[in-house]
């Protein structure tokens, strides 16, 4: 009798070392997979948040849209931006946040033949990759986002990352040209409700932006960008805007920071003085003064355009696109058109801030066009400086890229700046790679640092060198 009882036990024990866990680790109360329409909303929302969450706040402080006056924001102003500062942004904002969603979406959309999902995911991937490479230069992409198949991703050179961005956008443009299929994006597309035409126009606009990032590297960048702009959107109503909600859970990240961390960050002196000196009518839309502080957020001051919880953010605005166009025209020798387009960009900025022409006409009289300017550099400075003002609250990352490739506006290193992470005390050229990469992906991290000649904030990125 004993043998009969023992046998199954012995068999069971013998089977144990070889067994996989089967479905034992699958929680039947949870969804084990997600459909594209369940992934897309979070990919879009996280991408929009990435414009002005901590990455945007730090970049915005570097370009002096903001000044930190206490706690962590003060550290950004004093250049105490260390390997820890953007670690979480790299992780949950970019790679494991929006980019992981995009990678999943691309995989599913390609498998299920859903071209519009594929297109949107590729646009968003390119957009987030644009943030990553403009902050850190060489970043993982071509061999990244493969999950357990490769836990340690090598870094691509910045040059190849920009090629990947253009490639993704080209593939997206092609995907949006496909015939519609059943089950495509609709209400889950929180930006365009599934409209492939609008997305295609956005892809062209982003192509133009990332081409213009490389004006120092690619002599044909401006001409190519102008071609892309022909197919980009032509009105502000068509820009890829994400609308935030007027409650904390749905809030614009900048406003939420202002609410949760009062009296730590204010509008930067450089930006404010620039606007005050020109009597800029957008001032009251950007800040109000309380106890000597230029506050960028208020729950009650509804005049602030970019400091509301419901303030929208766009992947790229029509105003930015117009400034890019003006610069590209200037670079291709079309001075007259460049001057006109620049003035139009300035007017668009006034209008998106809700300023009536009666209030901005006086300003235009002194700031529109290229009158009084003779050299290319002077004209470029005027375009980029006005673009810098216009990008406030909407995209400090682009203002920083502009500064690094053009040197405008003429920022000065704050008197408080410290040199531990920026030995030559310049306006930062890049961020340090995150501590999490040093501790989890060391070989690739070190190879990337060595290839770029360091990663402290005074090391120029390939794109802007």
């Amino acid at each position, binding site marked *: 009798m004993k043998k009969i009882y023992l046998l199954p036990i012995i068999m069971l024990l013998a089977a144990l070392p070889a067994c996989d866990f089967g479905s034992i680790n699958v929680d039947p109360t949870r969804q084990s997979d997600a459909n594209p329409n369940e992934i897309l909303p979070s990919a879009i929302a996280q991408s929009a948040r990435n414009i002005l969450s901590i990455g945007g706040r730090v970049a915005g402080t570097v370009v002096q849209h903001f000044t930190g006056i206490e*706690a*962590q924001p*003060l*550290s950004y*102003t*004093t250049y*105490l931006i*260390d*390997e*820890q*500062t953007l670690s979480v942004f*790299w*992780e*949950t904002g*970019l*790679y*494991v946040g929006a*980019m*992981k969603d995009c*990678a999943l979406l691309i995989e599913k959309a390609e498998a299920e033949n859903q071209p519009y999902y594929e297109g949107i995911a590729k646009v968003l991937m390119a957009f987030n990759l644009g943030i990553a490479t403009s902050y850190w230069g060489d*970043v*993982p*992409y071509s061999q*990244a*986002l*493969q*999950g*357990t198949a*490769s*836990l*340690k*991703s090598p870094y691509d050179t910045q040059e190849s990352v920009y090629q990947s961005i253009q490639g993704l956008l080209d593939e997206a443009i092609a995907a949006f040209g496909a015939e519609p299929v059943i089950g495509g994006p609709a209400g889950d597309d929180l930006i365009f409700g599934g409209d492939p035409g609008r997305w295609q126009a956005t892809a062209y606009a982003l192509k133009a932006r990332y081409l213009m990032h490389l004006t120092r590297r690619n002599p044909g960048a401006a001409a190519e960008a102008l071609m892309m702009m022909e197919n980009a959107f032509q009105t502000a109503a068509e820009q890829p805007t994400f609308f935030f909600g007027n409650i904390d859970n749905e809030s614009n990240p900048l406003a939420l920071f202002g609410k949760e961390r009062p009296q730590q960050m204010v509008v930067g002196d450089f930006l404010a003085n620039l606007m005050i000196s020109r009597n800029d009518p957008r001032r009251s839309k950007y800040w109000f003064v309380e106890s000597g502080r230029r506050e960028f957020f208020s729950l009650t001051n509804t005049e602030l355009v970019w400091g509301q919880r419901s303030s929208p953010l766009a992947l790229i605005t029509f105003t930015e696109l117009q400034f890019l166009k003006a610069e590209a025209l200037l670079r291709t020798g079309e001075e007259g058109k460049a001057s006109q387009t620049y003035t139009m960009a300035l007017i668009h900025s006034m209008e998106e801030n809700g300023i009536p022409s009666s209030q901005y006409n006086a300003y235009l009289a002194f700031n529109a066009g290229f009158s009084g300017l003779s050299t290319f550099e002077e004209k470029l400075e005027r375009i980029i400086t006005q673009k810098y003002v216009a990008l406030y609250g909407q995209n400090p990352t682009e203002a920083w890229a502009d500064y690094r490739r053009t040197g405008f506006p003429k920022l000065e290193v704050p*008197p*408080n*700046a*410290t*040199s*531990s*992470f920026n*030995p030559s005390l310049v306006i930062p050229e890049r961020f*340090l790679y*995150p*501590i*999490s*990469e*040093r*501790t*989890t*992906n*060391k070989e*690739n991290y070190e190879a990337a640092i060595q290839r770029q000649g360091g990663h*402290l904030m005074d090391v120029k990125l390939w794109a802007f060198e």
Partner: protein
Amino acid sequence: MEAEVSAPSGFIVAPVNAGEIVNEGIELMVGINPVRTTNFRWDIDANFTQFENTVTELPEGIEQLSLATFSALSSLIVEGEPYGVLVGTAYQRNEQGQLIIGADGWPLINTEQIKVGDPNPDWIAGIRNSFTFKGLRLSGLIDIRQGGDIWNGTKGVMDGLGVGEESGRDREVTGFVYEGVTESGEVNTTPVDFANPANGASGIKWKRNGFLGLAEDNIEDGSWVRLRELTLSWTMPKLWFNNVFLQGATVTFSGRNLWLDTDYSGVDPETNLRGDTNDTGWDYFNLPNTRSYTFSLNLNF
């Protein structure tokens, strides 16, 4: 355990079978009875624990496991280091261990976080003395902890806000020259003022290194000697209860945490931010131990 993995993989953590740890040390317990007469008795019970632990192996491809993380400090499991080693922001030093001083006279911060402390004590001991005289009993427990680093984040933040003791005491210091060398290797001679408003926020010693301050600046020795407990009890003579309904009565008066001797600058080094967890040595506005007194009357029917 959950190990942090490189985010570009698409994941932040992966479950791994954690590595190996070696604990070596001694534990001693002694009970002696130096005096014993008919009416009086003195007992001493003592214990002593001394051990060293070292993480000897981590899963392949994993360089560290994190037990807890703040921006300036982490409790980590790292091969070759004690369990829960404190790694955080620190000053830049050359191979001789000298501080590297920037052109402005202030010491530079290391670009990478490094080991700043070991929260594990060198040894701990407890000594209980009990004296019994007829129905009276006096008993006291002395706890000793030697070593074990603590990160005093409370001090870091309070000094940064200008309300800590050190920032109050030293704010008038001017012309201080840090001992160290410049980046080119020469002896530093550039003086700094600890808190000159004219130099802005980064001209203030306690503010220039960030909200939490530099972890290295706030690591302290967590040694202590404390009177954990003192109890006086009196059991009333049995004679008294011959003709009453009670059979006996005991009155006890006791106190806990009555006395503490430590060099730790915070309230009490016996504390931990996340309570009874594996990440030890964190003081960040923690509630201190409470001192309590108890009176009790025990009646036997």
